[in-house]
């Protein structure tokens, strides 16, 4: 059995790596024809926050000894500016502009995929272990063909959204890298890495701040498991059924999910404060002569939260705030951002035993409700969705969702073209696709949560048949 598995893995690995290399080559080929694709100017790809063109403008302003935030062009992080800024001005003869930046994004994408794969493997291992504890051996057998980590990594790499975001010169691969790094670190129990990822992700795009809950749960309880109650009952039943068996032996069994490791949490919080101070000091140094940190927060987070730029994107907020009456503006800003926060606690309570899935749900919700969403955000949660193929196998509407995503991503450029370039359509056309996209994301979130809860129920049914019988 073991040998067979090993041989399987050996056979499987090259196949996986071929696809990874193929995806990298595909990206490089696309990068070589930037003018023909013109992806960098697509509103679906580059938002005011992630556009590399705006970053280049910010860098230019900084080079001419002005604040990079002067004017309303750049709203990103000063660290990203000093990282990517020098790359935007370097041109290599005969090669497309921004080649170096594109390479950075390709590398970030590959690293993202690798991290997703590694955390997927970890998740699957831990999950298999906990299922064995529950006495459910038949479930993990089903998924031995391809591990969910490989699926997720390949889904992430070959998702057209990811490719478009990477080739379209938006900084979202780097933002995604920070988020995935944090989740990976939390998954592996590496508190400093998790803290670094979380601090960077929050610094880059603010919305990942809500990921602190899944990260703490991940560090505390370890990766996703079936509900904890099942373990308790299982043990209770086993103990009750076999009084002859040595109780102590049973109690000594390593029960990972039951211990909340406060030590790691303390570590995480310590490292978080350390990294935040570090990032704040770096930012403070880089914006010292341009109005200090307060100005920085106003220009970056303030810009995100107040939705000042009304240029179209795949979200719904731009049109809403272009049309809404001015005196309602603040109210709706609070309502829409509150909508993200409202669902944090209920989700955390219901899914606390599956922190990685909780993180996926949070990312999906924030990328749906954030002020300047782009396909790069969708690419991230669609990639993470691949990690739960086994659990979400019974998800409803998956074909409908698949068709919906394809339909929206085909219709959205058409409507944009009709409205902006041809002038034959109007804004409502494009807004309708944005609306449809929001609905699809809602269905995805709701259905995946529902499927995950159903999966838990199924596990419960399978693991506690005696209980059911006993009660009746």
């Amino acid at each position: 059995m073991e040998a067979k598995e090993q041989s399987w893995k050996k056979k499987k690995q090259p196949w996986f790596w071929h696809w990874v290399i193929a995806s990298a080559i595909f990206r490089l080929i696309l990068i070589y024809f930037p003018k023909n694709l013109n992806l960098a100017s697509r509103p679906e790809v580059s938002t005011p926050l992630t556009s590399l063109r705006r970053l280049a403008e910010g860098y230019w302003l900084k080079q001419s000894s002005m604040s990079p935030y002067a004017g309303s062009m750049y709203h990103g992080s000063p660290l990203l500016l000093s990282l990517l800024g020098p790359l935007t001005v370097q041109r290599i003869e005969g090669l497309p502009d921004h080649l170096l930046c594109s390479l950075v994004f390709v590398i970030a994408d590959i690293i993202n995929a690798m991290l997703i794969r590694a955390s997927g493997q970890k998740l699957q291992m831990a999950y298999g272990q906990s299922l064995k504890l529950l006495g459910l051996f038949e479930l993990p057998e089903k998924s031995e063909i391809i591990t969910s980590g490989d699926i997720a990594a390949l889904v992430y790499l070959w998702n057209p959204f990811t490719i478009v975001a990477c080739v379209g010169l938006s900084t979202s691969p780097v933002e995604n890298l920070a988020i995935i790094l944090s989740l990976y670190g939390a998954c592996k129990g590496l508190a400093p890495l998790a803290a670094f990822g979380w601090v960077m992700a929050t610094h880059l795009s603010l919305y990942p701040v809500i990921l602190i809950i899944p990260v703490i749960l991940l560090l505390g309880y370890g990766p996703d498991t079936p509900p904890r109650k099942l373990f308790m009952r299982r043990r209770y039943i086993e103990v009750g059924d076999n009084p002859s068996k040595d109780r102590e032996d049973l109690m000594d069994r390593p029960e990972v999910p039951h211990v909340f490791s406060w030590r790691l949490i303390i570590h995480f919080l310590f490292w978080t404060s350390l990294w935040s101070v570090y990032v704040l000091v770096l930012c403070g140094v880089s914006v010292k002569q341009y109005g200090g940190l307060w100005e920085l927060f106003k220009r970056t987070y303030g810009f995100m939260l107040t939705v000042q730029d009304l240029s179209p994107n795949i979200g719904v907020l731009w049109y809403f705030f272009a049309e809404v009456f001015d005196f309602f503006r603040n109210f709706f800003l609070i309502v829409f951002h509150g909508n993200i926060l409202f669902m944090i606690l209920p989700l955390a309570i219901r899914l606390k035993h599956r922190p990685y899935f909780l993180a996926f749900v949070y990312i999906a919700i924030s990328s749906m409700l954030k002020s300047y969403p782009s396909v790069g955000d969708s690419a991230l949660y669609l990639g993470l969705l691949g990690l739960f193929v086994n659990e979400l196998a019974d998800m409803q509407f998956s074909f409908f969702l698949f068709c919906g995503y394809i339909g929206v991503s085909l219709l959205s450029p058409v409507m944009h073209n009709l409205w902006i370039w041809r002038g034959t359509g109007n804004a409502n056309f494009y807004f309708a696709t944005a609306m449809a996209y929001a609905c699809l994301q809602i269905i995805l979130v709701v259905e995946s949560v529902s499927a995950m809860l159903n999966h838990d129920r199924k596990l419960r049914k399978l693991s506690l048949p005696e209980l059911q019988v006993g009660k009746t």
Partner: protein
Amino acid sequence: MTHLPRRILYPFLLLLFHIFFSAIAFGSVLHEAGEEEFSEELLLRPLPDQKVLAHFHFETRAPSSLSDSYGRHHHLFPKAIAQLVQKFRVKEMELSFTQGRWNYDQWGGFDPIPSSNAKPPGVELWAVFDVPQYQVDASWKNLTHTLSGLFCASINFLESSTTYSAPEWSFQPSSGSLRYGTLPREAVCTENLTPWLKLLPCRDKTGLSVLMHRPSIYRGFYHSQRLHLKSSQFDSGGLESGIVLEQTLTVVLQPNSQSASKTYSIETKLQPSWSLSSIFGRKVTGRCVLAKSSNVYLQLERGLVTELENLRTENMISWADNMGSEGLRSNPGFELSVKPDRVFKEVNSVHSKSSSVLCEYSIVKYSDSEPFDLGLTWKLPAVWSCQQAPLHASRFLMGSGNERGAIAISLTSTELNEGFLGANTVEDSCKLQVDIFQVVPWYIKVYFHTLQVFVDGQPQGLTDVVEKMHVSPSEDKVSPGVMELVLKFPCGVKSATLTLEFDKGFLHIDEYPPDANQGFDIPSAVISFPNFLASTHYLEENSLTKTPMLSKFQEKSLVLSYTEVLLVPLTTPDFSMPYNVITITCTVFALYFGSLVNVLRRRVGEEERLLKNRAARKAGRLPQLLSKLSAKLRGKEWESPQSSSASSSFSSSKLMLKVVIVAGIAIFWQFYSK
């Protein structure tokens, strides 16, 4: 003492006398300076493209009123302006209302008239204040409101910080207290002219302003009314203190060509003859008695004078060598109906070959009975061209669609000035300096890092060409973007182009003007050539009486040219949609919230109960249907038949009873009501 030697006394007395007289003289000078002055002048100039330029110039001077700043009575100077200067401490200000675009190709771009009177369409206002830095914006806002009331124009729109800018050095050298704003779409009409005329002591009742017959001046191709104000009363050590108010009206008119119906072989080339009465429909019936000087000038440009000399040599008609008044009156090209009082010739150091000629008519001697009506009748066709700025500037938009685009400023060398530039090439490193001042509204989001310069079609490194650059990027809904550039081109440059890419912004529906689909205007860019100073010296017979217009011509002013106003169409949202958008979006959000809460709320215990009762599922078809019906009635989702349980069938039988009762009541009611 009594025997004081006369030798000593005499010089003493002389000294005393000297002091006394000089005191009188000084007093008289003081008196002279303390008087308000008004002068009116009109300059007429035939233009190469069969049009006539008329340039009215009114100047009012008021002495410094620092000594008695309040309650001062003005004799001639408009009190409204004096108060405005006092209140807002305006050092210098210029307000212009313009309709039409100055045709730099045809009407010239180098003389003092185009460089200071060719203005961008709409309203342009700039002002320099003598207040501390932090008060400048407040003063500007107050000034715009005051001027708006004074001139019946929507200058108050310049109050918003998105419309005005503070150029640092490219527009005018100033130490941060200059504010500049334009309203390219402002319509200019008589309602703006009337308050402007009210500032003149004689209104338009007498004097030269009688000529401002509204239908004729608004029929012109170009119309620019300007008010320039310079006050030096806040300077402590100013040489001449006081306020100088300069009001000019520049119109380009097309004379009716019916009068020139003489038969010529090349009739089309013959310039139309005109007279004051034919172009304005009025005659000058006398001067404004309050004016110190009232003169009419006829200016013949360099090109025209050269052409006339050519004509003279061709036609071998003898006219005086030095172009005297007689000679000018009977030259081969045209004929003047009135003999000029004086003729000035331009003093020119650079162009020795030809110089322009100015004929002066003093209208003191004319009256109602004998009105002044200058006429010019062309006898031979003349072709000439005006002196142009070193580079001809034009600006255009590139790209299509409503998402992004590029602004291009193209500078092309004017062929005529090659010789002029050649004169400067004596120096080794000949460089042509060009200053560009460009304001873009915030919804045109310019990427300054995309600035590209092409010289003669070849892309150039920015460091080679751009000498100095100052950019203040636009901030959404707060301030416009300002770009100030100093470019140095080699003198032999044929053409140069600057391109800047931009993204078009998307506005809130309230920010669109009433006619949103017309588009938005990008104000004119100001191109100036600091190496070239436009000034025309006229050799005068007696230099004591220098009239304001001539001294204005002598002032060294920058050669300026304004580019076209660009019209940028922006995308519009659907203006009728706000309620729909709000309701639909909120519905989607409610859908998200509701369905997610519903999913999370579903209890596992319920599921267990259903599972438990699965074994007890032994029910016929009717109870199943009934349970389905009851579920529908209760508004709950119908559980699959597998999960239908004994208890539910029990409840459904109870419900069946209820239904039967209700149906019975209904039948009974029906029966009873019959």
